């Protein structure tokens, strides 16, 4: 295409002015449209909070008191802020995994299970090879967590790519299998020998050697250096998706598997890869939780991050960099809700209901984005999530 400036020179003065004005108008429209894209999730959050006010009001509690306790708890002091960031860390890692899956046109509901197997594998490795030097043991522990997640996500990926099995169902099943596996391991093979000796029956593993605990970023808090790792990985995922051939192909398959196949992209391979990478990041989230927060494997470690991570990823417009502020926001919501429960006795479950509403509003607002995108043919800017789910996902199964 010819350069716009070149074209302008060739035009008569009148035509050039007309062109300039049109260009300006289009730029303004584009800019506004992009602004709205960014603001839509925020709007969804606001509506969810308003519905929350109504709910609290109906339940006879003071919404203002509850919300101020929530905000105060999450952001009011150093302890709140560090807790928020500590919770945001696994949310970001899971959210990044969800971004990759979505961009690749697959849905990963298996975050919970992938976190669990990641945490189990990391713990087993860290405890089992505790005599290795920390410099070797720490990365290997993280890698074993990531590898377990990779396998747990890769199996549904392979089944989808090769046999056309719906990945939503398999990831759900893999969640249940992972939970059963955890129950079994924590009550048998991985049960802390000290606990057995002491006669207590708390189902948890032995502690990891202190030398590989992730260093604290703020002393006397839980805030650990896993957060830095997560942010670096967000940059890496951005680079992967938008600056490498692999990422380009993942996104191409997500947008249109048929066209990708005609373009010579091995669709099956990239479907498997998206789910495997997605699982890998979730598995890593589990390993980081173990190494950074709990220092051992225990029940309830996944803490719903597998689902909250989906919410954070959607909120961040399925963009790895958008997931950073989004996971901080939902980390704050979770921490604030816990504090609110303690301070004013409003159940923290409110946060889960609000997350559900945010998802419902965000996915509903996509209709608006899609309709506009269709009108505005020719704009090649990032147009939100991959087109209609049905078109992409279901047809991948047929390819």
């Amino acid at each position, binding site marked *: 295409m010819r350069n716009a400036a070149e074209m302008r020179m060739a035009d008569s003065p009148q035509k050039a002015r007309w062109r300039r004005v049109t260009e300006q108008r289009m730029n303004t429209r584009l800019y506004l449209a992009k602004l709205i894209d960014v603001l839509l999730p925020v709007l969804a959050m606001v509506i969810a909070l308003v519905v929350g006010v109504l*709910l609290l009001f109906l*339940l*006879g*509690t003071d919404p203002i008191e509850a919300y101020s306790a929530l905000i105060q708890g999450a952001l009011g002091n150093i302890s709140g802020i560090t807790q928020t960031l500590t919770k945001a860390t696994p949310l970001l890692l899971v959210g990044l995994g969800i971004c990759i899956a979505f961009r690749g046109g697959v*849905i990963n*509901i298996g975050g919970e299970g992938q976190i669990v197997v990641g945490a189990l594998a990391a713990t087993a490795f860290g405890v089992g090879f505790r005599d290795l030097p920390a410099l070797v043991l720490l990365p290997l522990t993280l890698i074993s967590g990531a590898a377990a997640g990779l396998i747990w996500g890769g199996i549904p990926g392979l*089944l989808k790519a090769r*046999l*056309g*099995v*719906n990945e*939503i*169902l*398999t990831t*759900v*099943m*893999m*969640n*249940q*299998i992972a939970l*059963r*596996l955890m*129950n*079994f391991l924590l*009550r*048998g093979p991985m049960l802390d020998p000290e606990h057995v000796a002491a006669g207590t029956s708390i189902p948890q593993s032995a502690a990891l050697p202190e030398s590989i605990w992730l260093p604290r970023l703020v002393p006397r808090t839980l805030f650990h250096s896993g957060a830095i790792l997560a942010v670096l990985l967000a940059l890496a995922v951005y680079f992967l998706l938008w600056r490498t051939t692999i990422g380009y192909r993942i996104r191409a398959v997500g947008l249109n598997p048929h066209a990708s196949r005609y373009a010579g992209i091995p669709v099956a391979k990239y479907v498997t890869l998206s789910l495997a990478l997605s699982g890998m990041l979730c598995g890593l989230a589990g390993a980081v939780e173990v190494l950074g927060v709990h220092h051992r494997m225990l029940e309830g470690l996944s803490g719903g991050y597998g*689902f909250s991570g*989906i*919410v954070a990823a*959607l909120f961040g417009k399925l963009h790895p960099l958008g997931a950073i502020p989004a996971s901080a926001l939902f980390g704050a919501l979770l921490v604030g809700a816990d504090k609110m429960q303690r301070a004013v006795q*409003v*159940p923290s*479950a*409110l*946060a*889960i*209901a*609000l*997350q*559900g*509403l*945010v*998802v*419902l509003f965000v*996915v*509903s607002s*996509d*209709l608006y984005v*899609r309709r506009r995108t269709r009108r505005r043919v020719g704009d090649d800017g990032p147009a939100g*999530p991959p087109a*209609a*789910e*049905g*078109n992409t*996902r*279901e047809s991948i*199964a047929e390819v």
Partner: protein
Amino acid sequence: MLDELFTISTLVGILHSCVRLATPYLFAALGETFGQRSGVLNLGVDGIMLMGAFFAFYAVFEGHNLWVGVLVAIAIGVLMGLLKAFVSVTMQSLQGISGIGLYLFGLGLSSLLFKTLIGSVEGVSGFRQLAIPLLSDIPGLGHILFNHNALVYLAYLMVPLSWFVINRTTLGLKIRAVGHNPEAADTLGVSVNGVRYATLMIGGALAAVAGASLSIGLQNVFQENMTNGLGFIAVALVYFGSWRTVGVLGGSLLFSLVNALQLWVQALDIPVPSEVAVMMPYIMTIVVLAFTARQIQKPAALARSYERGE
């Protein structure tokens, strides 16, 4: 030790539990079948179940009749179905993800309501066993099949009823048409969105009754997240049963049989690693799906939003 499991009375007990425990799976999966046959994947079944379980329990807890509890659950289920329909039919959102939203909403709201309105774990007296005269006197079989509470019978009645509605009525024809080829159905004057709203409301009502069957029929308590992912299994059972009601029945019985076995193994204190055993139905479901995914014909428009062309 193991032979304790194979005495006649234990076997009868296990099969009785199996028939009983299939109830929530049946209600939820049959409801989901309606939605999927019309082309909508509702992944929020678990959230609807929790809401139904809570409201049925709350009504009974406040001293109302058990059937009032069921009706309240149905009303809540219809409302949740409407919400899902609005988001995924009218707003044409990604069906898988909007289901997750509905699940989180139901999970959070039911816990919030439970903690605010009830507070601690309390029991109610739920549906009682209703032995069917004569039939329940058949040795063995009578106890297994005809000695259950009303909701259990109702769940099994829903199997032929759903089959009849889907395969032998005008509504069923419309549902199948909309799920298979919405464009053609629309051309023939069938309201695609209308049918999908209807199936999602039916599905919501049945999912809520599934929840109620737990809270006022089988367990007679309400706890946070008491379904424990059962609703997600129900969605998978529809695929497992290849969108046929008989298949759904088979899948439900398989899952409930394993649950029943686990229950009895624990009760008899038999040293079998039951966690490993309970993985089996999930692994089997994956294997079955892997073998059948290419062969079964699923509703062609499943999980696909419909928008009229201009």
